[in-house]
């Protein structure tokens, strides 16, 4: 019986996979750029890295665990800490060199201009082998 209960419990609580926690992120798009707003309270912005590769944007960093006040007892802890990572896959390529970021009131705003690229037509000649 205990075994069965144990099995049931094991079944109902699957463990989720995460290498890092994901901060909540809003993403906007204008004609020229994307704007990502990331909720990163109590994070040292100097430790935040924004990596861009084509349409992939990865925002990562660290948050230190909250220190409990002196002599206090913990009743509840749920603020994520440690390494975080926000991975965005955008509908268009981003120009990494033009990207900027600012950190205000615990919110990180990242502006990600789109890469301007004209359509080029390439004529490919088909070679016919004898």
């Amino acid at each position, binding site marked *: 019986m205990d075994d069965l209960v*144990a*099995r049931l419990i*094991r*079944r*109902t*609580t*699957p*463990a*989720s*996979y*995460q*290498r890092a*926690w994901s901060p909540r992120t809003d993403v906007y798009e204008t004609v020229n750029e994307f704007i990502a707003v990331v909720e990163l309270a109590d994070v*040292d*912005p*100097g430790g*935040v*890295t*924004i*990596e*861009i*590769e084509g349409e*992939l944007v*990865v*925002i*990562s*960093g660290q948050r230190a*665990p909250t*220190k*409990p006040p002196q002599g206090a*007892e*913990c*009743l*509840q*802890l*749920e603020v*994520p*800490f*440690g*390494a975080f990572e926000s991975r965005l896959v955008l509908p268009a390529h981003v120009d*990494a*060199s033009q*990207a*900027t*970021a*600012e*950190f*205000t*009131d615990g919110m*990180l705003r*990242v502006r990600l201009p789109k890469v301007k690229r004209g359509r080029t037509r390439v004529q490919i000649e088909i070679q016919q082998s004898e």
Partner: protein
Amino acid sequence: MTDNEKPQRIPRVVDRRGESKPDEPSFPAVVGVLPLRDSVLFPNLALPVMVGRETSLKLIEKVVSDDRTLATVTMRDPRREEDPTPDDLFEIGTIGRVAELLRLPQGGIQLALQGQARVRFVEWVTGEPFLQARIEVVTPSPSTTEAQARMRTVLTLFGEVAELAPYIPPQFAIAAMNINDPGDLADFLAANLNLEAELKQQLLEELDVDKRLVAIQEYLTAERELLRISTRAQEEMTDEMRKMQRDLFLRRQLDVIKRELGEGDSEDVAELRRQVEEAHMPEEAKKAADRELERLERIPPQSPEWSVSRNYLEWLIEVPWSVETTDNDDLEHAMKVLNEDHYGLERIKDRIVEYLAVQKLHPEGRSPILCFVGPPGVGKTSLGQSIARALGRKFVRMSLGGVRDEAEIRGHRRTYIGSLPGRIIQGLRRAGTRNPVMMLDEVDKLGMDFRGDPSSALLEVLDPEQNHAYSDHYVEVPVDLTQVLFICTANILDTIPGPLRDRMEIIELRGYTEPEKVAIAKQYLIPRQLKENGLKSKQAAIAMDALRRITREYTYEAGVRNLEREIGSVFRKIATRVATNSTKGKVTATAADLEEYLGPPKVRRDVLEGGDEVGVATGLAWTPVGGDILFIEASLVDGKGRLTLTGSLGDVMRESAQAALTYARSRTKEVGADPEWYENNDLHVHVPSGAIPKDGPSAGIALASAVVSAVTKIPLRRTTAMTGEITLRGRVLPVGGIKEKVIAAHRAGCKTVILPRDNERDLIDVPEFVRKNLRFVFAEHMDEVLHEVLTKPVRALRPTSAVSPAGTAALPDRASARGSTR
């Protein structure tokens, strides 16, 4: 916060090229260790944990106020209650952190741990207030190409399992797809599949990523098979359920439609109810029937219970509660019918007529329970039929031969599948009236063993004091059997259990004598056989002398079965001739023709052949099929006084022979024998036929006669048959079975029969015809016997001086000669 506050530091924006490995996190060298019961924390995976143990709570307090980092390790024995020592823990654990915490109102803490890396516990730093260890991070082997390839296989497999397994939410399959690292995938699956903690621990300890994946793959393959089977089973079950629900639904609809059409919801039940009303049951049975009807209405007809209930009701209805035939109480008619069917048997016929007379005067009186005892073929069974005919009642016959289960008589309880009432109730139903003549054939052959004792069940049936409320296991309500006329038949009384015998009025049917047989043949057998062989009385006949010869030389039985068979043979032969037109006019078989019809005579009349002989006495025996004669041979040969007894003699008969010998020795002088005969001779006594076992003391005087004859060399009269027990002093004691024995002596052609004086009164049972043709000598002492049976008188014997004090009556020796069932 104010508007002036400027961001002090700006996040780095980098152009990402390829996957850059994040820095390996660093961990403290010594950490607190949380022992886990029955679960394993994997790197990069979350694990909910309930903490209640005092030491663990202390560890958590400490950790959350610090860097929130701790190591977990699984306990070897999940059932261990006390605080574990390092010996109880595995060596490989996981370092992780307390991601979330919630203190529960009822005490204890709910944690969400986040695994980070595998660690080995290098050294335990035990002591208060909690367990700590020096750790070393162990790095799994870098993933190989094989692992990459296997990862894809495992993912596919997991996809299949996730589809089948109800315990894997779909988002996990998606989450698994998003994992790039083979080691991480293995850990993810290990944590989320339904694995034993021990297996999980093994996977945690497995540093070779490829091997870890292999283990997962094996598990997944097995799980897939299992799930496929259980899914199929479940589908089948669902199909079945759906079908049943559909059936039920349709039936409901049908009911509604029927009701709408005014056909009534359950015609069957209404019909049964009507039948119950018409059955005129006694109150108790009626109540039971009403109860069952109510039950039947509630049971859906497709339930197996329904037919059980219905069957029961049908049985209840069919028991003849009130149907009764009126007895034909015309005594003369009854006598006429009985005489038509059977020859002789006056006592039984009288008894039936008496019963009718009583019945006429006291109609509510109880029926007697009769038991006909007699040899086979004397007409016991047909007498029952004839009685039923005479009374104008229904006749049911059931053979109890070989019945050995009480339930056959009294039925099975309704809880058994296929249960039925017992034979008595079945018989009543067959008769259709409550007052049939019920014939229980062969009650002496009821089986009785560990499976039950049917005779005990019969006790209730046959007890007039009890059978007004006979209860059958199946019917359950009492049934009145008092109006049933029970007639039992048996060949022997001995095997009928005492209590059962006690309840019945026993009427013995003796074997028929030759003139009776001839009369029966003339009146009953010949007309019947003529008819059966398709002959007319003007076509064939059997002459009287031929009939007599058939009874005497072709049959040897108490009844008339073989006689009828032989008559049948004769008629068949005649029928062949008639049918082939090889004869004209009437064919009459005469005594001389019998060899032609029936072959050589089948019965050898021992008595008739040969004259008187030395040392051969004619004894009489009783067998279940009537009496028989028995020759007792004694022979004196040179020797040393040894006695040899042969012929399958039982102990009683052997002792009887010893007594006879001692008597003979004591009479050496009186009979004028050689005084030294016993010292110089061996005596051999033999009783043919050697293969048939014999027992009982009734051959005593015959044994003594044979011995004396052998000693004195005086022949014995062959036509003088005798029976009687002998004492050492030569007294002759009474024995049983006189009637059968005398008839046998007569049948065998004896002239004189010597009987014990005390058996004289038994002669009243012997048919007059037999008595008239025999000379009887009643002896009290052996000397009288010798005087009668020796062909040469011996003067020293006291022919009439047999003065011996009146002895106590000996028990009749019913089993004086067993076997001899011809």
